[in-house]
């Protein structure tokens, strides 16, 4: 039975959130979250790719030969990743210089392929588009939350703007700039999210 749009959005954003429930797309969540601006562009890349690839794969789902199904899906995903890579390079070259390698890696992001296989290849285009949007936004919510902690602690800024009276009270936490800071923050974010949003099964 087809799910309602509200349920699809709820699943992607909270109940089946790709990061803290499905534990997918962790590589980029660790790599790009030390600066909020980088995180926002990465989120744009993932939302763009997962939404449009879900829609396209769903449109073609009845025509794709089963044996080459995954090759075709990867080809479609790679096309959208290439497009978003070029767009970011054109619009924000300085940010692209930093997150460029990770934008390319969206091709192998498990969220995209997972949604293509689990949802888009079995559901109608509009529902698939919504599912992609919801999963992309669910991924983005967690990444933005992590970046909102890492950037102030690591650089004393938010979106490049210095925190108020920074020179008086702020002291750099170098670990927040380095990859280990991302591991700690991701674990804490997952712990909080699972404690608050995930209902424990009745015994």
């Amino acid at each position, binding site marked *: 039975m087809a799910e309602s749009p509200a349920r699809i959005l709820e699943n992607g954003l909270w109940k089946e959130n790709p990061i803290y429930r499905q534990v997918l797309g962790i590589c980029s969540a660790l790599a790009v979250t030390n600066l909020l601006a980088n995180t926002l562009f990465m989120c744009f890349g993932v939302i763009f790719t997962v939404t449009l690839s879900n829609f396209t794969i769903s449109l073609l789902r009845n025509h794709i030969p089963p044996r080459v199904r995954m090759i075709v899906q990867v080809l479609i995903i790679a096309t959208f990743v290439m*497009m978003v890579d070029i767009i970011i*390079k*054109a619009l924000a070259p300085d940010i692209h210089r930093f997150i460029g390698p990770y934008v390319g890696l969206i091709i192998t992001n498990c969220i995209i392929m997972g949604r293509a296989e689990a949802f888009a290849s079995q559901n109608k285009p509009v529902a698939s588009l919504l599912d992609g949007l919801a999963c992309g936004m669910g991924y983005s919510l967690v990444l933005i939350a992590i970046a909102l902690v890492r950037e102030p602690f690591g650089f004393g800024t938010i979106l490049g703007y210095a925190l108020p009276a920074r020179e008086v009270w702020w002291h750099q936490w170098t670990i927040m700039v380095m990859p280990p800071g991302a591991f700690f923050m991701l674990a804490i974010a997952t712990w909080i999210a699972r404690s608050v949003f995930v209902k424990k099964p009745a015994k």
Partner: protein
Amino acid sequence: MNKKSMGYVLGFTLLVCVFCGAGVATVHFSTLGLLEKNEALHRNRVICRAFLLDVPGESAEAYAEAIRNHIRISRVRDGNSLRTVYRRTDAGQEAVGFDFGGMGFWDRINGIVVLTPDLAQILNIQFFDHKETPGLGARIEEQTFTDQFKGLQVAWERDAGQRVVIGASPEPDAGNRVDAITGATQTSSALMGFLNAELERVRNLEIE
């Protein structure tokens, strides 16, 4: 139509490839002008930073203007190829810069090294592009690393590979040594290797 037949599979796959290729090509060609402008701005910004030029504002025109006013750029024959040479002739701030590059840990690293006109001292070093590991080798472009090169002596009397030392040395306080990047020994060693090789080559250039 039988979706399992070879004709259908080949035809469908080919069609998807054509559409995907056309889509990427369309986006690529529609942003080509913007990409070229961005590249020129990035290059000019790196050159201005390397020569420590004061640039009023952040616009592309401001950087281009600063270079036009202070730097003379020429191409000098270097073996079978041409090397870009930059000259700053402002009184008291004379300097000469060279494009340099070589293999890093993952891919080619390209940059600019600025020296005093007698080539005795490095004034600055900056990088145009590289593909080193973010957070490790990519830290070569951070100011804390590049600032070490400001005023660094080039020990011309030493062996060709030891004129500038990046990393551990029996003489830690030597005037031609800078610290390597922790966790990026391969990048640091590669940079030391090709920087010394390039210094040897630029010494033999005939610059007017």
